[in-house]
């Protein structure tokens, strides 16, 4: 049955994708990149879709810094 086959294919590719993400996550922990699994998979899909990795890295860094700042602001505001 073609439907079954495609289903199996999908399952296989999903398993592979999971594997890839596993590997990448391990690498990211090795490198101290500080990315959780979900963020990582989003980033991977973005890169797969042709986004410049360097720019993406900048973006992530920026957003984090932003977040940190807002947090700090919040803390200082809260005090």
């Amino acid at each position: 049955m073609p439907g079954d086959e495609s289903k199996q294919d999908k399952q296989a590719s999903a398993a592979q994708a999971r594997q890839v993400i596993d590997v990448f996550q391990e690498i990211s922990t090795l490198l101290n990149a500080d990315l959780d699994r979900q963020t990582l998979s989003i980033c991977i899909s973005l890169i797969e879709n042709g986004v410049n990795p360097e720019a993406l890295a900048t973006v992530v860094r920026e957003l984090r810094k932003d977040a940190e700042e807002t947090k700090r602001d919040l803390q200082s505001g809260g005090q």
Partner: protein
Amino acid sequence: MSSRSQRVNTGINSLVRRLLVKIPGEEPAAVEERESSAVDFVREILESSDSPAVVADVNQASDLIKKRLLQTNPSPEKALRFTNLYSRLLSIPVITQKWAVLYFLYQLSDHQQRTPPILTSPFKSPIKRRRNIEDVIPGSPNYGAKRNDDIPAEAFAPEGLKKLPEREGGQRDRKEEEQAFAKSAATQREGVALKTALLAENYVEIDPPETALLRDLPFTLQGLSSSHLPFSSELTLKLPSTLPVPIISILHTLAEPSLLYRGLASFIQSPGGGLLGQSLRAAIGGELRSYLGLVATLEGQIRRALASLDEREPRGGIGKAGVTLKRCVVWTREATMGLRLMSLISEESKSKKGGQLISLIHGFSSSHGDPMVGAFAERLLVHVTRPFYDMLRQWIYDGELSDPYHEFFVSEQDPNAINDTPDARNRGGASSVWEDKYKLNEDMVPTIITQDFAQKVFLIGKSLNFIRYGCGDSQWVEEYSKAASKELRYGDTATLETWIDEAYKTTMARLIHLMSEKFHLFEHLKALKNYILLGQGDFIALLMESLSSNLDRPAGAQYRHTLTAQLEHAIRGSNAQYDSPEVLRRLDARMLQLSHGDIGWDCFTLEYKIDAPVDVVVTEWGNRQYLKVFNFLWRIKRVEFALASTWRKCMTGSRGVLQGEDENVTKAWKLTRGVLAEMIHFIGQLQYYILFEVIESSWDELQTAIHKEGCTLDDLIKAHTKYLNAITHKGLLGAKKKHHGEVDENTFMVQLGEILRLMLSYRDAVDGLYSWSVSDFTKRQGADVRNDVQNRRDDDDVLINTPATTRRGPRHLPDSTPALGIDDSIVDEFPVLQERLQALGAHFKSRVCLLLGDLAYQPDVDMRFLGVVMNFNDVYQPVRKKSSRPAGREQGRSSARA
């Protein structure tokens, strides 16, 4: 595509949502706004840099990560784990942009480690720290622009890249590594960070400040004086004495390119010696321009950095600006290498010119160990060799030497100087257009072409030139140059080679064609062999016959018109008449320079006139060789002719006049005939040997050599010279005996001359004997007529004892008193003649033995063969030493043989 961008959009949205911090109590609308602005910002950044800045290479990214891991961790454990993961990753086919993800992770880790040193520095006051953070994290929207300033090397790199391609690849890598190294070192050993911070705190202000130095630096790099760094003279840069030693040493390093630039700038202003020198200057000028471009970018960086400086920082905040003196040193390092190499070249080029100059630069490009130096020299070479290739093109397509500064490896010879060279003297001062007009100068052959190749090029040009001027076929040359001319340049050696090969083939074929068709070279060679080397037997025989009576007279009595008339007669009377008039008109008979006592035979010579283009092959030297061979052969022929006529006389005479009863006389005649036959044998063998073994076989070799495919004019000349040498050497004309000290006496030429002379005198003696016999015969006839039978009986008595006859003779000849004297002389002559014949014959034999002795030890097979042929039945005993024994011992044997 739209689905793709859609996916990207959703990805961006979810990413932003994940990373944004929820502010408690914020209004949903505000949250929305913040989110959308963040999304916009993210998209802007992502779109602004759509092409990856690094090469898409999985291995490179993984290498970078590995390096990082090794640097940050003392144990290799993590790196090992990464390697495992990486290999697993490679085996999974799902993801196409593996390197990109890896690179992304790498960049992020980058960020993680960048912050600590600043944050953990314990010496920073909270205020300072805060300001730092503000510095590092500016307002989001214009961060992208700011970021470019932060990494000046990147903005600078593309510029630098274009100017100095050796930096390609290396530049970015090195930058990455530098950053990586600096940062990892900082994290690993916090002590270093501490020291840095301490240094920054306790920084001693220098005078002039680094900012001022930086401001002056671009001028210095361009070789211009500035307020702090003046050039005190042409080659000295004065550094401010107030600076501390480390800064001085940095400035020293920076002064190097400046001074080199100044030197090179003055070098390119200097008048170039020759076209190649000029092109070298132009090429160096081009390089200097790109150096100035580099300096300009550097200046831009410095300006921008200085403009964004915060004066309150230690060291004027220069540490944050990204442009420091040290960095300038790094950036100018490779340019300095280039400048260094160029100044080396310019120094060395002063004593060199033309091909040597190219060889010098090519030496750098081909044999220098540093690939950067090689590439640089290669680039220079492209420009420098341009005039050289122009000359080459002119030479191989037009056959013209356009070399005003004598830089090409072919040079035109001064006709006056030619005769002074030892080479020309060897050939007896004969100069030829082909050999001497141009010269290949081996020193000037640049190493970019091989010697073989240079030889070919030389031949092509020479041939074209020769076709144009020697053969008067400039029309063909022009057409050829129009049809074949191509632009030559450095680099594509293979194509160049094929072109040159092509040109070589065409020109050579044309030249040979001209030589054989237009100038009948091969016909001339054949004619030379037929007439000068006596190949045309009937002609020579007729000529000799008709000239013989004439040539017996003294040389002074020879007249040119008789000679030419006889020559004409010989031509008409033999097969020579069917030869082409082109050949016959060149044939001439004349007398050599007379010397006292010569007879016509010694001076007569045939001549074959060779004119302009063909005399390249049959040179004056060749003509002389031909003449030499002709004279020799002519002499042999003449002796043969003389011996043959005497032999004929003897043979006819022996049936009539020579029949006598006197045993003594008969015996003398028998011996004489023996020696005569020996001589005829000798001459016959000699002639056979020279004509068939020497001339014909050499001729055969010449024929195969000159009809070979792809034969060039040089090959022709060589083959012909070899041919002549073979003939003169084997023909016993040039070979010198090596066993004895004296040279002149021992050549075969001299020996043969002696033998031939002996033969002629012997023949004279035989003629004398003959006439004696004849007169004796007539006397006897007369006596027969007058006297009766009784008298004849007396005569028989007389014949037993000759003196008795002579004494009695006159008594029985009553009528002629004058005959008395004649009779007396006749009687006296016989023993003298006999003795003379004997002596000459013995001398001849000893001579022959000597000759055979020499021949037997010749290295040449053919010459040994001649010895064997002459002495086929071992009649002669070859003698090796010059001091030979008297040949009387051999008399018996040789007469037995005869």
